[in-house]
């Protein structure tokens, strides 16, 4: 029998039609229209991409940042199944749902950006794939992880459909997928950092280091906890549920510990490579470096004490700061501090922004639809449910 009793997950219920889902629907339709134009007339017809900045919002934003923001499932699974912190179990399903959407949509987004997308299968085909390529590792690994996550999440659908036998059979081997669900993101989130290495001197030394895989991996784990803080606060407010403070408080402490280690590695590396003077130049790259790291330091001020961590508003703000820091780490390395020579500039077009917004809308829609119809969030204790009605 279980040693820790949690409320089992249950559908939240409620209507799917409302202002939010309507807006999501409109944004998703606009996105689909832009994608059609891109498919018939090429990338230049809708994007501001150029040969100086060949990777823009879709790659850096939707894929690199999107997948990192989708690390909640991985970070919580690490805590629950590897560090055996079973009390966090109620966070697993909601976090995994966020990851599932984030990654699946990142995978869809890359297809839109690929210039010769009909050849995509080459990445998995011996004779084509190149094991020296960091991109190969990332692409293969992300694809595998998306499949693994759907399997990890499938008990939710099996429960809903009442397929007990299948559910029990899957349960017996689920630990394999849980382990895969931890190793695969460790691999590709680290490799997303290694992606910068081959770009050499085009990337500002503040972000160009062979330690990039470690920095990106740590950042992804931290982002995972930050996103769970954010999502838990938003879900509690949106569904008028009790906020899971007894879980978020200690989890935030784990996050701060990881962040302290991250900052140590990050600054030791920058100082060791004599790159720190670059952070004190009067330019926007240096400014962006400090904004990025200020966002990493802010949570220590916001939720440094146990008392502060009992304040949902502070937890929420800390989650936002952590997300901003992770977003900036990636934006800085791949776009803001990426200098490919004079004469090149890039800022996403309206159409590019609308596609990213459409992907975000798809995530929000999924996050509204699935918990309302499938057992994802833990069943509320009776008094809270009464209050909700």
């Amino acid at each position, binding site marked *: 029998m279980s040693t820790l009793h949690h409320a089992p997950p249950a559908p939240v219920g409620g209507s799917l039609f409302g202002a939010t889902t309507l807006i999501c629907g409109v944004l998703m339709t606009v996105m689909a229209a832009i994608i059609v134009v891109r498919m018939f007339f*090429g990338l230049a*017809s809708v994007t501001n991409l150029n040969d100086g900045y060949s990777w823009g919002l879709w790659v850096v934003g939707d894929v690199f940042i999107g997948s990192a923001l989708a690390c909640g499932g991985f970070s919580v699974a690490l805590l629950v199944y590897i*560090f055996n912190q079973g009390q966090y179990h109620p966070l697993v399903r909601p976090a995994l749902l966020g990851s599932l959407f984030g990654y699946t949509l990142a995978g869809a987004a890359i297809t839109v950006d690929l210039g*010769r997308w009909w050849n995509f299968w080459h990445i998995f085909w011996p004779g084509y794939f*190149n094991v020296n*390529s960091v991109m190969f590792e990332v692409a293969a690994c992300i694809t595998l992880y998306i499949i693994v996550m759907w399997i990890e999440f499938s008990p939710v659908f099996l429960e*809903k459909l009442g397929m007990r036998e299948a559910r029990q059979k899957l349960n017996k081997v689920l630990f394999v997928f849980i382990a895969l669900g931890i190793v695969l993101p460790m*691999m590709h989130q680290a490799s997303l950092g*290694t992606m910068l*290495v081959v770009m050499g001197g085009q990337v500002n030394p503040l972000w160009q280091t062979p330690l990039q895989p470690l920095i990106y991996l740590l950042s992804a784990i931290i982002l995972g906890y930050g996103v769970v803080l954010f999502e838990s606060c938003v879900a509690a407010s949106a569904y008028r549920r009790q906020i899971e403070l007894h879980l978020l408080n200690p989890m935030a402490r784990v996050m701060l510990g990881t962040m302290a280690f991250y900052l140590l590695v990050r600054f030791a590396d920058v100082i060791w490579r004599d790159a720190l003077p670059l952070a004190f130049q009067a330019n926007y790259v240096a400014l962006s470096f400090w904004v990025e790291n200020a966002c990493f330091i802010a949570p220590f001020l916001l939720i440094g004490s146990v008392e502060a961590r009992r304040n949902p508003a502070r937890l929420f703000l800390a989650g936002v700061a952590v997300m901003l820091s992770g977003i900036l780490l990636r934006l800085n390395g791949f776009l803001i501090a990426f200098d490919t020579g004079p004469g090149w500039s890039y800022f996403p077009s309206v159409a590019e922004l609308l596609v990213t917004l459409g992907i975000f809308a798809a995530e929000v829609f999924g996050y509204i639809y699935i918990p309302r119809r499938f057992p994802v969030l833990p069943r509320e204790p009776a008094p809270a449910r009464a209050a909700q009605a």
Partner: protein
Amino acid sequence: MDNDRSASTAPVGNRREFIRGCLAAGGAALAAATTSRPAAARETYQRPPEALGLLYDATLCIGCKACVAACKRANDNPPEFSTVDKLWDTPLDTSGYTFNIIKMYRHGTMQTKDAEENGYAFMKTSCMHCADPSCVSACPVTAMTKDPTTGIVAYDAEACVGCRYCVVACPFGIPKYQYDSPTGKIGKCELCRHRYQDGHYSACAEVCPTGATLYGRTSDLLAEAKRRLALKPGSLTTYPRGNLSGGPDQSYEGYVGNYKQHVYGETEYGGTQVLKLSAVDFAKVGMPYLSPKSSASTSETIQHTLYGGLLMPFAVLGAMTYVAKRNVSRAGEAPPEAPGGEGR
């Protein structure tokens, strides 16, 4: 439910569990680190002995752009316009449709050719055919390849997925993509390898009237470049034209330029097969400083250390599977029959 109870009883057992978990995970990581043998650092590749390339001598270039036109013709590329009247091909940079271009350095009054102060100079921009190309290392599907004999860096559109990592990775900004096409390809110089079977060589070198662009084996070209650097500026010497390694003699007498004592491409990123000589500082004519160690070698050393033979991933996966199995069965991942689990 008993959320409160589990929370209040948590700390004591949990800390022990946490430490145990840390030890297990740490042990797993250690095991993983020891089983994956310390992969030898991937050295920077050097040019193959029979490598082919170009020698561009900026002091001989007169900026006629015959090479730009010849390159267009040899590669069946359409003209690109930058003037209002759109009368002739006027590309401002290399692109998915322009693989070779002559750029100009200008300073002050532009009085003297090849002077940094109040002068001007030309510089050819095209693929350098690196000994250790970043694009080849970056490409996930082997669409960019380096010929083991000629060392030519070639592109195969049939293999390409259009991810454009090569565009981002190249320190010279050479592979370029055709953004205006729904089936866009990468465009770059392949040293006219498609013309070799007809007895031709690189079109840019074939048509160059002054021998500023010279074709040949890179070893021969390097020797020629060093010969020029050793000459006294202003003295007379013989300049070959066309194909240095085996073409008919088309040489002529000319004056020695005021060279910077540096053959660009001799050691950059392990060396390139296209070499350059200039009287103006290379950084000022758009040739970046590159260390003798290639970024591809750093990147691949990291990749092979972490993923070589998939040893480390499988070791970590094994350890994680063990720990997860133990923890899943202990925590009772599935409460036997979740009462709320059945839907409508």
